[in-house]
């Protein structure tokens, strides 16, 4: 490889003329990390609106008791598809898109380590989701067993479309594994000279940890859906008690994947916040080392707490106690992070640009989600809260105001860098405040609905839950339509022909290698490694 580089330099070839190919071929065959990052982010944006419409249909149905819009079968399909697409089609690709755009620029690498693999891992996704979404337009129901696809709902009782679902999960898994490999190899081998481990931006650190989580648990998910496929068609009975298997085994396998998965969804977001807060507080991050250790600790603990999703499946007291305490232990590294973020803000000279607003919104509301998680971790209270709207409220607080807010914050933060165009701060504020109001109006009443006993995943409910449900629905529509502002802002920045006004550093307090590049950065960056002081 060094020969090839030397050869190019001798013959006077400069990589400057390796611009993108014209037309659609640029996007189909690209191996450029910036292009692939853009593809991931736009894919995620499209899926966000597809799945968002499903969420609004769910909320519309729940506006009043009785049937409003959907019959129960379609309601179940909507909850299933909404969950699957939001997790696998929105949050994960968005985080992968951010990783593609930012990791090489942050560590001073010219590209990802395995660019062709990178192209493949993106292009698997549109096919996987076309396959998944196509089940809604074929005869027979789409997957309707919830995003957790518990056996036997997805095996004996699963509709025919379950096989499409299984195959699309296989494709998503392959895509995630390749993306994770690529990120690990890039971070290990392609850091610029002087970019030591403890100088890496926290976004890079948290993605490194996330990539290891992905490598560890995606094969488990693949194994899980393969066992389902075997049970459905090849006469095995992994999850069928009639043939000697056990449906509870499904839950163990699924949640062994599922719990690390929730950290896969949130850890890159922690990294984003750790990069944004110091910029707008104009202070270095408080306790960098502890942030790194806390991230790794959360990842490790994430593997040994899966049974807290299964407290009522018949575990002995000792197991329940262990999983309860282990789960509560995760609050320690998470608490370290929250306190360090707050300490970063302490005595900083803070300004409230839109990325900072979303980061602060994350800080407050993710903590609320964390606390409701602690309530769910307690075995006795979990017996009451399980499978109620309290759980729905909890995981939407950590996923919407957690993961999603960090992604939006990241997009506002780096959009001027990516496109060269500054977004409108006024519109950004509108987007933030409408999102915060909509989000809290949607999910805060769900806590009370859950405590009052409303079960999750039902299309109908008794009369006494009506008021709170109507609040939720109104909030959901405010939140949903607020995202159109975001769409407008992103598209305007991406396609604007106006003069590019963003400076290289963009933000006064921004630190890091990516801010030394021009805005937008050239197609190829850091072909000569920068010197990291």
């Amino acid at each position, binding site marked *: 490889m060094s020969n090839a580089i030397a050869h190019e330099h001798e013959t006077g070839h400069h990589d400057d003329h390796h611009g993108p190919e014209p037309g659609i071929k640029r996007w189909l065959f690209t191996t450029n990390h910036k292009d692939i990052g853009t593809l991931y982010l736009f894919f995620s944006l499209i899926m966000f609106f597809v799945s968002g419409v499903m969420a609004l249909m769910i909320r519309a149905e729940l506006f009043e008791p009785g049937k409003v819009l959907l019959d129960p079968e379609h309601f179940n399909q909507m909850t299933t598809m909404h969950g699957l697409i939001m997790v696998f089609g929105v949050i994960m690709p968005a985080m992968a898109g951010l990783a593609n755009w930012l990791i090489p620029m942050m560590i001073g690498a010219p590209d990802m380590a395995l660019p062709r693999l990178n192209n493949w891992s993106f292009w698997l996704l549109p096919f996987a989701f076309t396959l998944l979404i196509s089940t809604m337009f074929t005869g027979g129901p789409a997957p309707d067993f919830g995003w957790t696809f518990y056996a036997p709902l997805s095996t004996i009782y699963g509709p025919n479309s379950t096989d499409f679902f299984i195959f699309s999960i296989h494709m998503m898994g392959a895509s995630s594994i390749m993306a994770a490999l690529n990120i690990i190899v890039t971070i290990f081998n392609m850091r610029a000279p002087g970019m030591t481990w403890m100088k890496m931006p926290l976004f890079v650190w948290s993605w490194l940890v996330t990539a290891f989580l992905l490598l560890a648990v995606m*094969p488990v998910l693949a*194994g899980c859906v*393969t*066992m389902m496929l075997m049970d459905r068609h090849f*006469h095995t*009975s*992994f999850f*069928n*008690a*009639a*043939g*000697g*298997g*056990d449906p*509870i*085994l499904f839950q*163990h*396998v699924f949640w062994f994947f599922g719990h690390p998965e929730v950290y896969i969804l949130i850890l890159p977001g922690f990294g984003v916040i750790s990069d944004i807060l110091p910029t707008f507080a104009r202070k270095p991050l408080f306790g960098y080392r502890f942030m790194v250790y806390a991230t790794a600790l959360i990842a490790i603990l994430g593997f040994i707490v899966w049974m807290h999703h299964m407290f009522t*499946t*018949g*575990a*002995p*007291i000792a*197991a329940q106690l262990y999983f309860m305490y282990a789960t509560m232990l995760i609050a320690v590294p998470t608490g370290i992070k929250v306190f360090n973020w707050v300490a970063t803000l302490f005595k900083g000279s803070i300004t409230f640009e839109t990325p900072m607003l979303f980061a602060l919104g994350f800080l407050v509301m993710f903590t609320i989600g964390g606390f409701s998680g602690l309530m769910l971790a307690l075995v006795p209270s979990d017996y009451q809260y399980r499978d109620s709207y309290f759980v729905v409220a909890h995981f939407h607080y950590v996923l919407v105001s957690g993961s999603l807010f960090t992604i939006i914050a990241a997009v506002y933060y780096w959009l001027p860098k990516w496109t060269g165009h500054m977004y409108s701060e006024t519109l950004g504020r509108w987007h933030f405040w409408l999102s915060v109001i909509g989000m809290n109006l949607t999910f805060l009443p769900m806590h009370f609905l859950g405590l009052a006993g409303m079960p999750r995943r039902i299309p109908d409910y008794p009369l006494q839950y009506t008021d709170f449900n109507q609040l939720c629905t109104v909030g959901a529509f405010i939140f949903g339509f607020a995202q159109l502002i975001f769409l407008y802002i992103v598209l305007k920045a991406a396609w604007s022909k106006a003069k590019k006004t963003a400076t290289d550093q963009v933000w006064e307090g921004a630190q890091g290698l990516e801010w030394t590049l021009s805005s937008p950065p050239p197609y190829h960056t850091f072909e000569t490694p920068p010197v990291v002081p």
Partner: protein
Amino acid sequence: MCGVFFMFVFCYMMVPLFNIMCKQFGLNGKSGASASVFDPHMQVDYSRTIKVTFTTTLHGALKFKFIPLQRHLEIHPGERKLVYFFSENQTGRELTVQAVPSITPSDAARFLKKTECFCFTQQYFFKGEKADMPVYFFIDPGVSRDIKEVTLSYTLFDASGFVKGQARYTKGRIDL
């Protein structure tokens, strides 16, 4: 290649491994689907009495009648008892069924031991056949003193898709 092989073997062994784990740790109310050995010299603990309740469930739409002949009994730890479960095939065809036991509370699961049980094997029923099927069980005196009540629950599954080539086990079964 090695990794793929490992993954295959691990998935293949998943159910047996899981059953061993459940039996060892009393997870999931499992007490094992094989016979325990009753030590006739075991010290019966007359100071304690445990109430054992029997419940039955039919899985899915299986048209069977399946009930315990007595709803509950009282037993001293270390003492062996026999209970019968009545079942009648109302499906209108011959059928192989499999009963799957579960015990609550799960902390008692591994102490309730069965020396003979109709759940150890599949059970074959002719069209309209009726039978009383036996369970011999005892509670190991090692069980925690906190355990005052135990529920032994059986779910009857249609196993016709999974018929094993084993001899029809009818030991102790009373055909009616």
